[in-house]
């Protein structure tokens, strides 16, 4: 007999794994792991501000993560530092500011461990509804802009020369990521949001011959990681979010051994 809370956790986790697949592939293709970190880490500040203003945390996370994603997108365009330096600065500054604000704002009490590491086992039915709806919005948006997203990934110049809009592409990508952060924070925690994005995608990369196949493989690997992680958490009493990532990392190690069969 499976406990209801485990069923809920599995459902929420599978939904997140599905939504994470196309986004995670884009993050891996674009070498933007730090971008996920910057957006994810901003969520803590969002939670703190939302609590001090007495609005639902998801609103605070959505606003701050979107603001962060847009700021990073348009700050890395110009400037003297390499993109990864700028992203690293943003990512870690956001986390540190969030921790400080959470500590000093009057009347704000945040369960830091839960915010940082997530708590998939206490996910509620209404939270699952929010994840399903938000996830649907993300998937529909990405599907709508998919050709542009692939072209901008391959070569922004080529896309612009063919008449595509780089600004539209950036908005789709950054805002989808911000919404994803808001949806998945409860499940895996802000420290591991990027892991949920990039580990399954990286594990799928050696197995795929087309972008869409890689997205499907990523969804599959993400789902197996969620179920495996929950099982591991149940059996070993380990924290659920990190357990999911541990399973994903194990799959990554396995597929990395896959013989390179891509050659013609």
């Amino acid at each position: 007999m499976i406990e209801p809370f485990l069923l809920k956790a599995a459902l929420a986790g599978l939904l997140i794994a599905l939504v994470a697949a196309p986004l995670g592939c884009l993050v891996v293709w674009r070498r933007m792991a730090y971008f996920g970190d910057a957006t994810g880490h901003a969520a803590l500040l969002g939670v703190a501000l939302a609590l001090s203003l007495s609005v639902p945390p998801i609103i605070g996370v959505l606003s701050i993560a979107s603001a962060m994603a847009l700021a990073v997108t348009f700050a890395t365009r110009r400037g003297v530092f390499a993109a990864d330096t700028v992203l690293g600065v943003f990512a870690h500054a956001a986390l540190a500011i969030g921790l400080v604000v959470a500590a000093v704002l009057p009347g704000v009490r945040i369960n830091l461990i839960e915010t940082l590491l997530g708590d998939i086992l206490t996910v509620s039915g209404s939270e699952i509804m929010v994840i399903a709806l938000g996830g649907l919005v993300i998937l529909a948006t990405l599907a709508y802009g998919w050709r542009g997203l692939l072209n901008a990934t391959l070569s922004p110049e080529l896309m612009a020369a063919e008449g595509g809009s780089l600004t539209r592409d950036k908005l789709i990508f950054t805002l989808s990521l911000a919404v994803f952060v808001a949806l998945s924070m409860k499940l895996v925690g802000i420290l591991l949001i990027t892991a949920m994005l990039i580990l399954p995608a990286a594990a799928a990369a050696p197995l795929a011959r087309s972008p869409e196949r890689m997205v499907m493989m990523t969804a599959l690997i993400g789902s197996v990681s969620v179920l495996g992680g929950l099982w591991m958490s149940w059996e070993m009493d380990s924290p659920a979010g990190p357990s999911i990532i541990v399973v994903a990392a194990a799959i990554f190690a396995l597929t990395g051994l896959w013989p390179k069969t891509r050659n013609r």
Partner: protein
Amino acid sequence: MPTNTPLIRAENLSVKTGRRVLLDAVSFAILPGEAISLIGPNGAGKTTLIRALIGTMPISDGTLFRRPGLRLGYTPQKLPLEQLIPMQVDRFIALSGERDKARRREMLARCGAGGLQAAQMMDLSGGETQRVLLARALMRQPDLLILDEPTQGLDQPAEARFYQLLGEIRAETGVAVFMVSHDLHMVMAQSDRVICLNGHICCSGTPGMVARDPSYIELFGQCAGLAPYRHHHHEHCDHD
């Protein structure tokens, strides 16, 4: 001499980032059917100019006119992310918006990349990549091809084959070509007009005229002026 409306006309085009001036009051026009080579030392602003023409680099000063309805074909120097994204050649061509598989196959074959449809982009050699990029650019039946160092990293035979292909395609379609290039000999043989860039335009004109220009000789040295190739396009050229 082609007398049609220019495809692109730049007037006193300047690009600055912060306090650095990358392009300083650059003026030129690209006429239909013309082959123009853009040469210049590293850091001369060649890539900046290309980006300004494409529209990914904001212009600080001056104006850039595009003929209304101008269709651009563009080949980047390379695809920096091709190592990470799994993609077959045919899919890459289809991403230009061409839905007809037969037309895609035809164009690949025309560019000497027939049989590569099922290959992964990341497995292509440098020469094959350039052919595939060219096929994608031509898929859109462009009025103007902008090629960013199409022969970088190619060995001499591959380079010669690429220029031969480009010549054939120009003869067939009459497409204008604006090409960044390092190899001066080929430039001399293949271009109607050469623009020598070093932040500003230091000289421009027919390859023969540019090769004798003191500012060109100063940039590239005496030996560069001794390019042994002859070109046959004097009648198409004007010095500006």
